[in-house]
Protein backbone atom coordinates (compact mmCIF):
# COMPACT_ATOMS: atom_id res chain seq x y z
CA UNK A 1 0.00 0.00 0.00
CA UNK A 2 2.85 2.40 -0.72
CA UNK A 3 1.74 5.69 -2.14
CA UNK A 4 2.55 9.37 -1.80
CA UNK A 5 2.15 10.45 1.81
CA UNK A 6 -1.16 12.19 2.47
CA UNK A 7 0.29 13.77 5.59
CA UNK A 8 3.94 14.55 6.21
CA UNK A 9 5.44 15.80 9.46
CA UNK A 10 8.87 17.34 9.61
CA UNK A 11 10.57 18.22 12.88
CA UNK A 12 7.31 18.75 14.75
CA UNK A 13 7.99 19.86 18.33
CA UNK A 14 5.78 20.98 21.17
CA UNK A 15 7.06 22.57 24.34
CA UNK A 16 4.92 23.34 27.39
CA UNK A 17 7.05 25.65 29.52
CA UNK A 18 10.03 23.50 30.52
CA UNK A 19 8.47 20.26 29.35
CA UNK A 20 9.09 18.92 25.85
CA UNK A 21 5.98 16.99 24.90
CA UNK A 22 7.06 16.34 21.30
CA UNK A 23 10.66 16.27 20.24
CA UNK A 24 11.35 16.74 16.52
CA UNK A 25 8.82 14.28 15.13
CA UNK A 26 9.11 13.14 11.52
CA UNK A 27 6.35 10.99 10.09
CA UNK A 28 4.80 10.07 6.76
CA UNK A 29 1.21 8.88 6.74
CA UNK A 30 0.15 7.14 3.56
CA UNK A 31 -3.13 7.53 1.75
CA UNK A 32 -5.62 4.88 2.84
CA UNK A 33 -3.55 3.33 5.60
CA UNK A 34 -4.59 2.55 9.15
CA UNK A 35 -1.81 3.89 11.33
CA UNK A 36 -1.92 3.44 15.08
CA UNK A 37 0.23 5.48 17.42
CA UNK A 38 0.79 3.58 20.65
CA UNK A 39 2.42 4.83 23.80
CA UNK A 40 2.03 4.97 27.55
CA UNK A 41 0.24 7.98 29.05
CA UNK A 42 2.44 11.04 28.94
CA UNK A 43 4.29 9.83 25.84
CA UNK A 44 2.94 12.76 23.81
CA UNK A 45 0.52 10.88 21.58
CA UNK A 46 -2.51 12.96 22.55
CA UNK A 47 -0.56 16.17 22.06
CA UNK A 48 0.53 14.94 18.64
CA UNK A 49 -2.97 14.10 17.45
CA UNK A 50 -4.32 17.41 18.76
CA UNK A 51 -1.65 19.19 16.76
CA UNK A 52 -2.50 17.14 13.67
CA UNK A 53 -6.18 18.13 13.80
CA UNK A 54 -5.29 21.73 14.64
CA UNK A 55 -6.74 22.09 18.13
CA UNK A 56 -3.28 22.55 19.58
CA UNK A 57 -0.55 24.68 18.02
CA UNK A 58 2.92 23.28 17.47
CA UNK A 59 6.00 25.05 18.75
CA UNK A 60 8.17 24.20 15.75
CA UNK A 61 8.06 22.11 12.60
CA UNK A 62 6.14 21.67 9.36
CA UNK A 63 3.06 19.68 8.39
CA UNK A 64 2.03 19.00 4.81
CA UNK A 65 -1.36 17.72 3.75
CA UNK A 66 -0.52 16.49 0.24
CA UNK A 67 1.17 19.62 -1.18
CA UNK A 68 -0.21 22.20 1.21
CA UNK A 69 1.42 23.39 4.40
CA UNK A 70 -1.24 23.24 7.12
CA UNK A 71 0.52 23.74 10.44
CA UNK A 72 -0.78 27.31 10.75
CA UNK A 73 -4.33 26.42 9.69
CA UNK A 74 -6.89 26.38 12.53
CA UNK A 75 -8.89 23.21 13.15
CA UNK A 76 -12.07 24.49 11.53
CA UNK A 77 -10.30 25.10 8.22
CA UNK A 78 -8.60 21.69 8.02
CA UNK A 79 -10.23 18.89 6.04
CA UNK A 80 -9.57 16.41 8.83
CA UNK A 81 -11.77 15.25 11.66
CA UNK A 82 -11.29 13.52 14.99
CA UNK A 83 -13.32 11.14 17.11
CA UNK A 84 -12.64 12.33 20.66
CA UNK A 85 -11.89 10.14 23.66
CA UNK A 86 -15.06 11.46 25.32
CA UNK A 87 -16.75 11.26 21.89
CA UNK A 88 -17.92 14.87 22.39
CA UNK A 89 -21.45 14.18 21.23
CA UNK A 90 -23.64 17.26 21.69
CA UNK A 91 -26.01 16.46 24.56
CA UNK A 92 -28.54 19.12 23.51
CA UNK A 93 -28.92 17.70 20.02
CA UNK A 94 -30.52 14.48 18.85
CA UNK A 95 -28.58 11.63 17.24
CA UNK A 96 -29.69 12.87 13.81
CA UNK A 97 -28.70 16.48 14.54
CA UNK A 98 -25.33 15.30 15.79
CA UNK A 99 -24.65 13.36 12.61
CA UNK A 100 -25.86 16.21 10.42
CA UNK A 101 -23.89 18.86 12.29
CA UNK A 102 -20.95 19.04 9.85
CA UNK A 103 -23.38 19.09 6.91
CA UNK A 104 -25.42 21.86 8.52
CA UNK A 105 -22.24 23.91 8.85
CA UNK A 106 -21.79 23.51 5.11
CA UNK A 107 -25.35 24.72 4.58
CA UNK A 108 -26.42 21.54 2.87
CA UNK A 109 -30.19 21.43 2.48
CA UNK A 110 -32.12 19.50 5.14
CA UNK A 111 -33.35 16.75 2.80
CA UNK A 112 -29.86 15.83 1.60
CA UNK A 113 -28.64 15.99 5.16
CA UNK A 114 -31.31 13.63 6.31
CA UNK A 115 -30.59 11.22 3.45
CA UNK A 116 -26.88 11.17 4.31
CA UNK A 117 -27.60 10.66 8.02
CA UNK A 118 -29.83 7.71 7.20
CA UNK A 119 -27.10 6.22 5.01
CA UNK A 120 -24.58 6.56 7.80
CA UNK A 121 -26.89 5.06 10.42
CA UNK A 122 -27.19 2.14 8.07
CA UNK A 123 -23.44 1.87 7.52
CA UNK A 124 -22.91 1.74 11.29
CA UNK A 125 -25.67 -0.80 11.91
CA UNK A 126 -27.89 1.62 13.81
CA UNK A 127 -31.65 1.39 13.17
CA UNK A 128 -33.35 4.41 11.56
CA UNK A 129 -35.33 4.96 14.75
CA UNK A 130 -32.13 6.29 16.34
CA UNK A 131 -32.40 9.46 14.30
CA UNK A 132 -34.69 11.08 16.86
CA UNK A 133 -33.06 9.65 19.98
CA UNK A 134 -31.37 11.83 22.53
CA UNK A 135 -27.69 11.13 23.18
CA UNK A 136 -28.35 10.19 26.81
CA UNK A 137 -30.72 7.49 25.62
CA UNK A 138 -27.92 5.70 23.75
CA UNK A 139 -25.68 3.02 25.25
CA UNK A 140 -21.89 3.28 25.23
CA UNK A 141 -21.53 1.24 22.06
CA UNK A 142 -24.29 3.14 20.30
CA UNK A 143 -22.63 6.43 21.15
CA UNK A 144 -19.39 5.18 19.57
CA UNK A 145 -21.29 4.52 16.38
CA UNK A 146 -23.00 7.91 16.44
CA UNK A 147 -19.65 9.65 16.94
CA UNK A 148 -18.20 7.67 14.06
CA UNK A 149 -21.18 8.48 11.84
CA UNK A 150 -20.78 12.17 12.62
CA UNK A 151 -17.08 12.06 11.76
CA UNK A 152 -17.83 10.23 8.50
CA UNK A 153 -20.54 12.77 7.65
CA UNK A 154 -17.77 15.36 7.69
CA UNK A 155 -16.08 13.24 5.01
CA UNK A 156 -12.56 14.03 6.20
CA UNK A 157 -9.37 13.47 4.24
CA UNK A 158 -7.96 11.81 7.36
CA UNK A 159 -9.97 10.47 10.26
CA UNK A 160 -8.25 10.72 13.64
CA UNK A 161 -9.20 8.73 16.73
CA UNK A 162 -8.18 9.63 20.27
CA UNK A 163 -8.67 6.30 22.07
CA UNK A 164 -12.44 6.37 21.71
CA UNK A 165 -12.85 2.74 22.78
CA UNK A 166 -10.99 3.01 26.08
CA UNK A 167 -14.12 3.47 28.21
CA UNK A 168 -15.95 0.40 26.92
CA UNK A 169 -16.06 -3.05 28.43
CA UNK A 170 -13.84 -5.75 27.01
CA UNK A 171 -16.25 -7.62 24.74
CA UNK A 172 -17.81 -4.54 23.21
CA UNK A 173 -14.35 -3.12 22.61
CA UNK A 174 -13.22 -6.26 20.81
CA UNK A 175 -16.28 -6.16 18.56
CA UNK A 176 -15.88 -2.48 17.75
CA UNK A 177 -12.17 -2.94 17.00
CA UNK A 178 -13.05 -5.41 14.30
CA UNK A 179 -15.87 -3.24 13.02
CA UNK A 180 -13.56 -0.26 12.84
CA UNK A 181 -11.07 -2.23 10.78
CA UNK A 182 -13.90 -3.35 8.56
CA UNK A 183 -15.12 0.24 8.20
CA UNK A 184 -11.61 1.29 7.26
CA UNK A 185 -11.58 -1.24 4.44
CA UNK A 186 -15.04 -0.29 3.22
CA UNK A 187 -14.49 3.47 3.24
CA UNK A 188 -10.88 3.38 2.02
CA UNK A 189 -10.12 6.44 4.16
CA UNK A 190 -6.89 7.17 5.98
CA UNK A 191 -7.30 6.34 9.68
CA UNK A 192 -4.90 7.53 12.36
CA UNK A 193 -5.65 6.01 15.72
CA UNK A 194 -4.01 6.55 19.08
CA UNK A 195 -4.20 4.18 22.01
CA UNK A 196 -2.20 2.92 24.94
CA UNK A 197 -3.34 -0.62 24.23
CA UNK A 198 -1.09 -2.59 21.99
CA UNK A 199 -3.64 -5.32 21.48
CA UNK A 200 -6.01 -2.75 20.02
CA UNK A 201 -3.24 -1.58 17.72
CA UNK A 202 -2.38 -5.12 16.60
CA UNK A 203 -5.94 -5.98 15.65
CA UNK A 204 -6.62 -2.93 13.55
CA UNK A 205 -3.54 -1.36 12.10
CA UNK A 206 -1.52 -1.58 8.93
CA UNK A 207 1.37 0.13 10.68
CA UNK A 208 2.10 0.83 14.31
CA UNK A 209 4.18 3.69 15.65
CA UNK A 210 5.47 3.25 19.19
CA UNK A 211 5.87 6.51 21.03
CA UNK A 212 7.94 7.26 24.08
CA UNK A 213 8.76 10.59 25.73
CA UNK A 214 7.80 12.67 22.72
CA UNK A 215 9.62 10.60 20.08
CA UNK A 216 8.91 7.59 17.94
CA UNK A 217 10.75 4.53 19.15
CA UNK A 218 9.79 2.36 16.19
CA UNK A 219 7.40 2.59 13.24
CA UNK A 220 6.66 -0.67 11.41
CA UNK A 221 4.01 -3.25 10.59
CA UNK A 222 2.60 -5.04 13.61
CA UNK A 223 4.44 -8.30 13.03
CA UNK A 224 7.79 -6.58 12.66
CA UNK A 225 7.29 -4.70 15.92
CA UNK A 226 6.26 -7.88 17.67
CA UNK A 227 9.09 -10.05 16.38
CA UNK A 228 11.89 -7.52 15.97
CA UNK A 229 11.53 -4.64 18.41
CA UNK A 230 14.36 -2.11 18.27
CA UNK A 231 14.52 -1.56 22.00
CA UNK A 232 13.73 -3.13 25.35
CA UNK A 233 10.97 -0.54 25.74
CA UNK A 234 9.20 -1.67 22.58
CA UNK A 235 9.74 -5.35 23.40
CA UNK A 236 8.23 -4.96 26.86
CA UNK A 237 5.44 -2.76 25.61
CA UNK A 238 4.40 -5.45 23.14
CA UNK A 239 3.18 -7.92 25.73
CA UNK A 240 4.91 -10.63 27.73
CA UNK A 241 8.52 -11.19 26.75
CA UNK A 242 11.74 -12.78 28.04
CA UNK A 243 14.76 -10.52 27.90
CA UNK A 244 18.32 -11.55 28.71
CA UNK A 245 21.44 -9.45 28.96
CA UNK A 246 24.12 -11.02 26.77
CA UNK A 247 27.65 -10.26 25.58
CA UNK A 248 29.68 -11.27 22.54
CA UNK A 249 32.47 -13.79 23.14
CA UNK A 250 35.80 -14.47 21.48
CA UNK A 251 34.48 -17.73 20.03
CA UNK A 252 31.84 -15.76 18.08
CA UNK A 253 28.81 -16.70 20.13
CA UNK A 254 26.89 -15.13 22.99
CA UNK A 255 27.08 -15.54 26.72
CA UNK A 256 24.42 -14.59 29.25
CA UNK A 257 25.67 -12.03 31.77
CA UNK A 258 22.85 -12.60 34.27
CA UNK A 259 20.91 -15.75 33.42
CA UNK A 260 23.13 -18.69 32.49
CA UNK A 261 22.27 -19.36 28.85
CA UNK A 262 23.86 -22.33 27.16
CA UNK A 263 24.43 -21.88 23.45
CA UNK A 264 24.55 -25.13 21.49
CA UNK A 265 26.26 -24.10 18.31
CA UNK A 266 29.15 -21.76 17.63
CA UNK A 267 27.51 -20.43 14.48
CA UNK A 268 24.22 -18.66 15.15
CA UNK A 269 24.13 -16.72 11.89
CA UNK A 270 24.73 -13.06 11.18
CA UNK A 271 21.67 -11.89 13.15
CA UNK A 272 23.36 -12.89 16.37
CA UNK A 273 26.81 -11.48 15.67
CA UNK A 274 28.13 -9.39 18.49
CA UNK A 275 31.65 -8.05 18.92
CA UNK A 276 33.59 -9.29 21.92
CA UNK A 277 32.59 -7.57 25.15
CA UNK A 278 29.68 -5.66 23.57
CA UNK A 279 26.47 -6.16 25.49
CA UNK A 280 22.99 -6.46 24.05
CA UNK A 281 19.58 -7.87 24.91
CA UNK A 282 18.41 -11.26 23.70
CA UNK A 283 14.68 -11.53 23.31
CA UNK A 284 12.37 -14.51 23.01
CA UNK A 285 8.58 -14.52 23.23
CA UNK A 286 7.02 -16.93 25.78
CA UNK A 287 5.19 -18.90 23.09
CA UNK A 288 8.48 -19.70 21.31
CA UNK A 289 10.09 -21.32 24.35
CA UNK A 290 9.95 -25.15 24.53
CA UNK A 291 10.19 -27.51 27.47
CA UNK A 292 13.05 -29.82 26.55
CA UNK A 293 12.91 -33.47 27.50
CA UNK A 294 15.64 -36.10 27.71
CA UNK A 295 18.59 -35.13 25.56
CA UNK A 296 16.66 -32.71 23.30
CA UNK A 297 18.71 -29.80 22.12
CA UNK A 298 17.99 -26.22 21.12
CA UNK A 299 20.12 -23.28 20.01
CA UNK A 300 19.60 -21.56 23.35
CA UNK A 301 18.99 -23.43 26.62
CA UNK A 302 18.22 -22.35 30.20
CA UNK A 303 17.64 -24.51 33.28
CA UNK A 304 15.35 -23.62 36.14
CA UNK A 305 12.61 -24.49 38.55
CA UNK A 306 8.94 -24.57 37.49
CA UNK A 307 7.38 -22.08 39.92
CA UNK A 308 3.80 -21.65 38.80
CA UNK A 309 1.23 -22.50 36.18
CA UNK A 310 -1.63 -20.21 35.13
CA UNK A 311 -4.57 -21.23 32.95
CA UNK A 312 -5.33 -18.36 30.52
CA UNK A 313 -8.17 -20.04 28.68
CA UNK A 314 -6.88 -21.09 25.29
CA UNK A 315 -3.30 -20.95 26.58
CA UNK A 316 -1.42 -21.90 29.71
CA UNK A 317 1.38 -19.77 31.10
CA UNK A 318 4.31 -21.07 33.17
CA UNK A 319 6.73 -19.19 35.36
CA UNK A 320 10.20 -20.70 35.54
CA UNK A 321 12.84 -19.41 37.93
CA UNK A 322 16.35 -19.50 36.55
CA UNK A 323 19.28 -20.29 38.87
CA UNK A 324 20.09 -16.60 39.39
CA UNK A 325 16.51 -15.92 40.51
CA UNK A 326 15.23 -14.25 37.31
CA UNK A 327 11.82 -15.38 36.14
CA UNK A 328 11.06 -16.62 32.65
CA UNK A 329 7.64 -16.89 31.05
CA UNK A 330 6.60 -19.80 28.84
CA UNK A 331 3.28 -20.10 27.08
CA UNK A 332 1.72 -23.21 25.54
CA UNK A 333 -1.58 -23.79 23.84
CA UNK A 334 -4.01 -25.58 26.11
CA UNK A 335 -3.75 -28.79 24.12
CA UNK A 336 0.08 -28.72 24.32
CA UNK A 337 0.18 -28.34 28.08
CA UNK A 338 3.42 -29.32 29.79
CA UNK A 339 3.16 -32.57 31.72
CA UNK A 340 5.57 -31.59 34.52
CA UNK A 341 4.57 -30.49 38.02
CA UNK A 342 5.21 -27.22 39.83
CA UNK A 343 8.48 -27.68 41.71
CA UNK A 344 10.08 -29.78 38.95
CA UNK A 345 13.45 -28.89 37.57
CA UNK A 346 12.99 -28.11 33.86
CA UNK A 347 15.10 -27.36 30.81
CA UNK A 348 13.91 -24.65 28.47
CA UNK A 349 15.08 -24.11 24.93
CA UNK A 350 14.43 -22.10 21.79
CA UNK A 351 15.97 -21.84 18.38
CA UNK A 352 17.70 -18.96 16.75
CA UNK A 353 14.81 -18.19 14.35
CA UNK A 354 12.66 -17.29 17.36
CA UNK A 355 15.34 -15.21 19.01
CA UNK A 356 15.96 -11.54 18.36
CA UNK A 357 18.95 -9.50 19.40
CA UNK A 358 18.24 -5.95 20.53
CA UNK A 359 21.47 -4.08 19.95
CA UNK A 360 22.34 -1.01 21.96
CA UNK A 361 20.99 2.09 20.20
Amino acid at each position, binding site marked *: MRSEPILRLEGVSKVFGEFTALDQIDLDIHEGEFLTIVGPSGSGKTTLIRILVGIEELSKGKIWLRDARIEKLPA*NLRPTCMVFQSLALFPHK*SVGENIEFPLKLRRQNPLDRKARADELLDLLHLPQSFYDKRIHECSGGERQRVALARALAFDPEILFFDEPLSALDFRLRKNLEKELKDLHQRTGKTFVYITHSLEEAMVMSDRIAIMRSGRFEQIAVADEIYARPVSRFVAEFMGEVNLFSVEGTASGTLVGTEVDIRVASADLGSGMNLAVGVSATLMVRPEAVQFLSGDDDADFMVEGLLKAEYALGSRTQYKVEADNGDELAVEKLREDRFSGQVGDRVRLGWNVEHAHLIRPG
Partner: protein
Amino acid sequence: MSRSARIALGLYGMLAILFLYLPIISVGFASVSKARYLTFPIKRYATKWYGKAIESSTVQDLLVTSLSVALLVTVISMVVGFFGALAFARYQWRFRGTFQKLILLPIFFPQAVLGLALLLWFNALGIIPSWKTAVVAHLVWISPIATLIIAIRAYSFDPALEEAARDMGASTWTVMKEITGPLLWPGVVSAGLFAFLLSWGNFPLSLFTTGADSTLPEWLYAKMVSGYSPLVPSVGILSIFTSIVLLLVGVIVMWIIRARSEASSANAR
Protein backbone atom coordinates in the same frame (compact mmCIF):
# COMPACT_ATOMS: atom_id res chain seq x y z
CA MET B 1 -37.85 3.23 60.44
CA SER B 2 -39.85 2.80 63.62
CA ARG B 3 -43.22 4.48 64.11
CA SER B 4 -42.00 6.81 66.84
CA ALA B 5 -38.98 7.87 64.79
CA ARG B 6 -41.27 8.67 61.87
CA ILE B 7 -43.48 10.79 64.04
CA ALA B 8 -40.50 12.59 65.59
CA LEU B 9 -39.04 13.30 62.15
CA GLY B 10 -42.40 14.54 60.87
CA LEU B 11 -42.74 16.82 63.86
CA TYR B 12 -39.23 18.15 63.40
CA GLY B 13 -39.98 18.88 59.76
CA MET B 14 -43.17 20.73 60.66
CA LEU B 15 -41.32 22.85 63.22
CA ALA B 16 -38.59 23.71 60.73
CA ILE B 17 -41.17 24.79 58.15
CA LEU B 18 -43.06 26.78 60.78
CA PHE B 19 -39.84 28.48 61.83
CA LEU B 20 -39.10 29.45 58.22
CA TYR B 21 -42.57 30.61 57.19
CA LEU B 22 -44.31 31.85 60.31
CA PRO B 23 -42.69 35.31 60.10
CA ILE B 24 -43.87 35.72 56.52
CA ILE B 25 -47.33 34.51 57.38
CA SER B 26 -47.52 36.97 60.26
CA VAL B 27 -46.72 39.81 57.85
CA GLY B 28 -49.66 38.53 55.85
CA PHE B 29 -51.87 38.75 58.91
CA ALA B 30 -50.63 42.21 59.74
CA SER B 31 -51.51 43.39 56.25
CA VAL B 32 -55.15 42.43 56.62
CA SER B 33 -55.68 43.87 60.08
CA LYS B 34 -58.10 46.75 60.37
CA ALA B 35 -56.34 48.11 63.42
CA ARG B 36 -53.56 50.58 62.99
CA TYR B 37 -51.14 48.59 65.12
CA LEU B 38 -50.55 44.88 64.98
CA THR B 39 -52.02 42.94 67.86
CA PHE B 40 -52.81 39.26 68.10
CA PRO B 41 -55.40 37.90 67.82
CA ILE B 42 -56.60 40.14 65.03
CA LYS B 43 -60.06 41.36 65.92
CA ARG B 44 -61.23 42.81 62.62
CA TYR B 45 -59.98 42.04 59.16
CA ALA B 46 -59.78 44.51 56.30
CA THR B 47 -58.26 44.50 52.81
CA LYS B 48 -58.45 48.23 52.30
CA TRP B 49 -54.70 48.65 52.80
CA TYR B 50 -54.02 46.67 49.62
CA GLY B 51 -56.26 49.04 47.70
CA LYS B 52 -54.46 51.98 49.23
CA ALA B 53 -51.08 50.46 48.44
CA ILE B 54 -51.97 49.98 44.79
CA GLU B 55 -53.45 53.46 44.44
CA SER B 56 -50.66 55.25 46.32
CA SER B 57 -48.41 57.20 43.98
CA THR B 58 -45.56 56.81 46.49
CA VAL B 59 -45.84 53.05 46.25
CA GLN B 60 -46.03 53.23 42.45
CA ASP B 61 -42.86 55.31 42.40
CA LEU B 62 -41.17 52.82 44.70
CA LEU B 63 -42.24 49.98 42.48
CA VAL B 64 -40.89 51.69 39.36
CA THR B 65 -37.58 52.45 41.07
CA SER B 66 -37.16 48.95 42.48
CA LEU B 67 -38.16 47.31 39.21
CA SER B 68 -35.83 49.54 37.17
CA VAL B 69 -32.92 48.74 39.44
CA ALA B 70 -33.67 45.01 39.58
CA LEU B 71 -34.30 44.59 35.85
CA LEU B 72 -31.18 46.51 34.86
CA VAL B 73 -29.12 44.54 37.37
CA THR B 74 -30.61 41.30 36.02
CA VAL B 75 -29.84 42.02 32.38
CA ILE B 76 -26.34 43.34 33.02
CA SER B 77 -25.52 40.48 35.42
CA MET B 78 -26.59 37.92 32.84
CA VAL B 79 -24.36 39.45 30.16
CA VAL B 80 -21.40 40.08 32.47
CA GLY B 81 -21.91 36.70 34.14
CA PHE B 82 -21.96 34.86 30.81
CA PHE B 83 -18.66 36.24 29.60
CA GLY B 84 -17.21 36.23 33.10
CA ALA B 85 -18.04 32.54 33.42
CA LEU B 86 -16.29 31.81 30.11
CA ALA B 87 -13.17 33.51 31.44
CA PHE B 88 -13.64 31.84 34.80
CA ALA B 89 -14.19 28.28 33.65
CA ARG B 90 -13.56 27.78 29.94
CA TYR B 91 -10.43 29.54 28.82
CA GLN B 92 -6.90 29.00 29.97
CA TRP B 93 -5.20 32.34 30.36
CA ARG B 94 -2.39 33.80 32.34
CA PHE B 95 -4.20 35.52 35.19
CA ARG B 96 -7.11 33.12 35.44
CA GLY B 97 -6.32 32.05 39.00
CA THR B 98 -6.09 35.67 40.15
CA PHE B 99 -9.29 36.52 38.30
CA GLN B 100 -11.12 33.61 39.92
CA LYS B 101 -10.20 34.85 43.39
CA LEU B 102 -10.70 38.57 42.79
CA ILE B 103 -14.10 38.19 41.15
CA LEU B 104 -15.51 36.44 44.22
CA LEU B 105 -14.07 38.84 46.77
CA PRO B 106 -17.00 41.34 46.78
CA ILE B 107 -19.35 38.56 47.95
CA PHE B 108 -17.38 38.25 51.17
CA PHE B 109 -17.56 41.96 51.97
CA PRO B 110 -20.24 42.89 54.48
CA GLN B 111 -22.79 44.71 52.35
CA ALA B 112 -23.00 47.70 54.66
CA VAL B 113 -19.26 48.21 54.34
CA LEU B 114 -19.44 47.78 50.60
CA GLY B 115 -22.30 50.30 50.45
CA LEU B 116 -20.36 52.83 52.51
CA ALA B 117 -17.26 52.33 50.40
CA LEU B 118 -19.22 52.88 47.20
CA LEU B 119 -20.91 55.98 48.58
CA LEU B 120 -17.53 57.49 49.46
CA TRP B 121 -16.28 56.56 46.04
CA PHE B 122 -19.26 58.16 44.28
CA ASN B 123 -18.75 61.30 46.33
CA ALA B 124 -15.07 61.40 45.47
CA LEU B 125 -15.97 61.14 41.78
CA GLY B 126 -18.59 63.85 42.17
CA ILE B 127 -21.46 61.56 41.18
CA ILE B 128 -24.77 62.37 42.84
CA PRO B 129 -26.25 59.13 44.20
CA SER B 130 -29.58 58.06 42.68
CA TRP B 131 -31.20 54.77 41.72
CA LYS B 132 -28.64 54.54 38.90
CA THR B 133 -25.74 54.47 41.33
CA ALA B 134 -27.66 51.78 43.22
CA VAL B 135 -27.59 49.71 40.02
CA VAL B 136 -23.81 49.97 40.03
CA ALA B 137 -23.67 49.07 43.72
CA HIS B 138 -25.93 46.06 43.26
CA LEU B 139 -23.86 44.92 40.31
CA VAL B 140 -20.66 44.97 42.36
CA TRP B 141 -22.21 42.45 44.70
CA ILE B 142 -24.55 40.50 42.40
CA SER B 143 -22.61 40.06 39.16
CA PRO B 144 -19.97 37.88 40.90
CA ILE B 145 -22.78 35.64 42.10
CA ALA B 146 -24.23 35.46 38.59
CA THR B 147 -20.76 34.68 37.24
CA LEU B 148 -20.36 31.89 39.76
CA ILE B 149 -23.74 30.35 38.93
CA ILE B 150 -22.99 30.32 35.20
CA ALA B 151 -19.41 29.15 35.80
CA ILE B 152 -20.70 26.08 37.65
CA ARG B 153 -22.74 25.25 34.57
CA ALA B 154 -19.73 25.93 32.34
CA TYR B 155 -17.56 23.60 34.42
CA SER B 156 -20.05 20.80 34.04
CA PHE B 157 -19.67 20.38 30.31
CA ASP B 158 -16.88 18.75 28.37
CA PRO B 159 -14.47 21.21 26.68
CA ALA B 160 -14.16 18.64 23.90
CA LEU B 161 -17.68 19.60 22.76
CA GLU B 162 -16.44 22.99 21.59
CA GLU B 163 -13.27 21.48 20.16
CA ALA B 164 -15.28 18.90 18.26
CA ALA B 165 -17.56 21.55 16.79
CA ARG B 166 -14.54 23.57 15.76
CA ASP B 167 -12.85 20.50 14.31
CA MET B 168 -15.92 19.91 12.13
CA GLY B 169 -15.61 23.38 10.66
CA ALA B 170 -17.48 25.70 13.03
CA SER B 171 -16.21 29.27 13.37
CA THR B 172 -15.84 30.86 16.81
CA TRP B 173 -19.26 32.50 16.40
CA THR B 174 -20.92 29.25 15.29
CA VAL B 175 -19.43 27.36 18.23
CA MET B 176 -20.91 30.02 20.54
CA LYS B 177 -24.30 29.87 18.83
CA GLU B 178 -24.58 26.11 18.39
CA ILE B 179 -22.74 24.70 21.40
CA THR B 180 -21.64 27.08 24.18
CA GLY B 181 -24.76 29.26 24.17
CA PRO B 182 -27.38 26.50 24.29
CA LEU B 183 -25.43 24.57 26.91
CA LEU B 184 -24.93 27.60 29.17
CA TRP B 185 -28.43 29.02 28.66
CA PRO B 186 -30.08 27.28 31.65
CA GLY B 187 -27.28 28.63 33.85
CA VAL B 188 -27.79 32.14 32.46
CA VAL B 189 -31.52 32.00 33.20
CA SER B 190 -31.01 30.86 36.78
CA ALA B 191 -28.32 33.51 37.25
CA GLY B 192 -30.85 36.08 36.01
CA LEU B 193 -33.45 34.86 38.49
CA PHE B 194 -31.01 35.09 41.36
CA ALA B 195 -29.84 38.51 40.25
CA PHE B 196 -33.38 39.82 40.20
CA LEU B 197 -34.30 38.39 43.59
CA LEU B 198 -31.10 39.59 45.24
CA SER B 199 -31.50 43.09 43.83
CA TRP B 200 -35.25 43.27 44.48
CA GLY B 201 -34.80 42.43 48.15
CA ASN B 202 -31.55 44.27 48.78
CA PHE B 203 -31.54 46.76 51.60
CA PRO B 204 -28.00 47.63 52.82
CA LEU B 205 -26.52 48.53 49.43
CA SER B 206 -29.60 50.51 48.41
CA LEU B 207 -29.66 52.39 51.71
CA PHE B 208 -26.19 53.80 51.08
CA THR B 209 -26.34 54.39 47.37
CA THR B 210 -29.82 55.44 46.20
CA GLY B 211 -29.43 59.05 47.38
CA ALA B 212 -32.79 60.81 47.19
CA ASP B 213 -34.48 57.84 45.46
CA SER B 214 -35.89 55.00 47.46
CA THR B 215 -36.48 51.32 46.80
CA LEU B 216 -39.22 49.16 48.32
CA PRO B 217 -37.07 47.61 51.08
CA GLU B 218 -35.75 51.05 52.05
CA TRP B 219 -39.24 52.45 52.28
CA LEU B 220 -40.42 49.45 54.31
CA TYR B 221 -37.65 50.09 56.79
CA ALA B 222 -38.26 53.82 56.96
CA LYS B 223 -41.98 53.33 57.57
CA MET B 224 -41.23 50.72 60.22
CA VAL B 225 -39.14 53.27 62.08
CA SER B 226 -41.74 56.01 61.87
CA GLY B 227 -45.20 56.24 60.38
CA TYR B 228 -46.24 52.60 60.55
CA SER B 229 -49.61 51.60 59.19
CA PRO B 230 -50.87 48.29 57.75
CA LEU B 231 -49.83 49.79 54.42
CA VAL B 232 -46.32 48.61 55.32
CA PRO B 233 -47.08 44.86 55.53
CA SER B 234 -49.40 45.11 52.51
CA VAL B 235 -46.59 46.55 50.40
CA GLY B 236 -44.32 43.85 51.85
CA ILE B 237 -46.71 41.13 50.75
CA LEU B 238 -47.08 42.70 47.30
CA SER B 239 -43.30 42.69 47.03
CA ILE B 240 -43.22 38.98 47.89
CA PHE B 241 -45.82 38.34 45.20
CA THR B 242 -43.64 40.06 42.64
CA SER B 243 -40.84 37.66 43.55
CA ILE B 244 -43.17 34.68 43.26
CA VAL B 245 -44.46 35.81 39.88
CA LEU B 246 -40.92 36.21 38.67
CA LEU B 247 -39.98 32.77 39.97
CA LEU B 248 -42.89 31.27 38.07
CA VAL B 249 -41.88 33.11 34.91
CA GLY B 250 -38.38 31.70 35.35
CA VAL B 251 -39.65 28.17 35.82
CA ILE B 252 -41.85 28.51 32.74
CA VAL B 253 -38.94 29.86 30.67
CA MET B 254 -36.78 26.88 31.74
CA TRP B 255 -39.61 24.54 30.90
CA ILE B 256 -40.04 26.12 27.46
CA ILE B 257 -36.32 25.83 26.76
CA ARG B 258 -36.40 22.15 27.57
CA ALA B 259 -39.60 21.49 25.63
CA ARG B 260 -38.28 23.37 22.61
CA SER B 261 -34.98 21.53 22.46
CA GLU B 262 -36.84 18.24 22.67
CA ALA B 263 -39.41 19.30 20.09
CA SER B 264 -36.76 20.58 17.69
CA SER B 265 -35.20 17.14 17.51
CA ALA B 266 -38.60 15.50 17.06
CA ASN B 267 -39.54 17.97 14.33
CA ALA B 268 -36.27 17.58 12.50
CA ARG B 269 -37.66 14.64 10.56
